[in-house]
């Protein structure tokens, strides 16, 4: 959820930068700064999407509290 929020915020920022850049009303200094920022945001968003470290867990409720337990991915998860 947190990851999603960061991604969403970054993407919004990125879209705003792209708009500002295409608006052509920035000074060269501003434009270059925005451009660099935009490229970094695009890079970080892409990285988030291309990350390969997913977690697979089971949700277990015990005594009214939730815990996550690692799920054995070979399809033989216990429970």
């Amino acid at each position, binding site marked *: *959820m947190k*990851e*999603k929020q960061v*991604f*969403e915020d970054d*993407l919004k920022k*990125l*879209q705003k*930068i*792209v708009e500002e*850049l*295409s608006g*052509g009303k*920035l000074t*060269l200094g501003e*434009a*270059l700064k925005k*451009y660099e920022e*935009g*490229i970094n945001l*695009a890079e970080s*968003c*892409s990285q*988030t*999407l*291309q*990350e*390969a*470290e*997913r*977690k*697979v*867990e*089971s*949700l277990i*409720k015990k005594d009214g509290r*939730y815990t*996550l337990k690692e*799920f054995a*991915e070979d*399809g*033989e*998860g216990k*429970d």
Partner: protein
Amino acid sequence: MPMPLEDKHIYTVSQITQEIGVIFENTFGNGVWVEGEVSNFKAASSGHFYFSLKDSAAVLSAAMFNRANRELKFQLQDGIKVICFGKIDVYGARGQYQMIVEKIEPKGIGARALAFEQLKEKLLKEGLFDSAHKRPLPFMPFSVGVVTSSKGAAIRDILGILKKGAPCVDVVIRSARVQGEGAAQEIAQGIEELNQFNQVDLIIVSRGGGSTEDLWAFNEEVVARAVYNSKIPVISAVGHQINISLCDLVADLFVETPTAAAKIIVDKKNTFLAELDNLRHEMVFSISETISSLKNNLTALRHALKSPLDRLHEKEQLLDDLSAGLSQNMRQLIEITRERASSLIHRLGALSPLAVLSRGYSLSMLMKDESVIKDALRIKPGDRVKTILSNGSFISLVEEVRRNERKTGF
């Protein structure tokens, strides 16, 4: 021929009613099946059902007590044709007989199918399928909750597709039995728990293919309501060929297989990656545009800046051109002047005293003041005189001066 009164067997109302009861008991005691249309249906607050069965010619009162009607899969209502099983009972207090119904089957359609249609109708009226209630799928689900059997094919399919296509997505499995008694309750509870846990962006409710019977849990009201009440968007992915489950109808999106559900997430990821590439290209394009437009401005400015110098150069060139022209003109002028001068000189030459001298005349001057001697009276003997000839001169001493008596011209 009436018997004498004293010989007759006289029943009390209660006795005869009881007798009738015995006859009914003997005749219908093992239960009978009666077919008819339901009318005057009432569900009492006690939970008992009261209604009538009728056909074109007769009406039979019926009661179904709560103990029996709890098992009823569909909703009893006026107008439906049913087949009831039960006993015929005498209700002495009212002098009536009625059927005590133990079981009811809808006529012509399975109880389950009727129940499904009835429930669907009810949920439709309540607005559970309204498209206005459908939530958009999340921006990009980085965490997906799956309600399904942890041992089933559905979770294996989903994990397989996600691992290959979108390994950035975390999966939280809320295991639930997906068929059999109590499965619907577990599925519903799973959806509720994932909502309470509140750490996934999307819920997939799923099971692999199976018979209509196998998939029945996804048609139950408790599941439909849990999906409807979920704050997190729900994809229903119940493997089926023909029938659409109630879970499908309520869900924000439904697909036919667990694999298809996982592919939606993979597609979303790929769409975003492509979008990011587009944004990157747009930025590169924009910045190039900005730079090239600035370059153009700069060139224009440089032109503007250089222009005074250019103008000076232009003026210099003009000046050069002009001066070239001028000297040309001057030369011509000089030439003309020279020619005129030489012709004048030529003409002058004819008038020159020197020309006269060359014809044998001479010119004499007094040495003392170099004045030309035109008057004989001006010279005296002893004066020195310079005489100029055409090709030289000589100096002489005057011995005598003579004056002409007659005036003559020169």
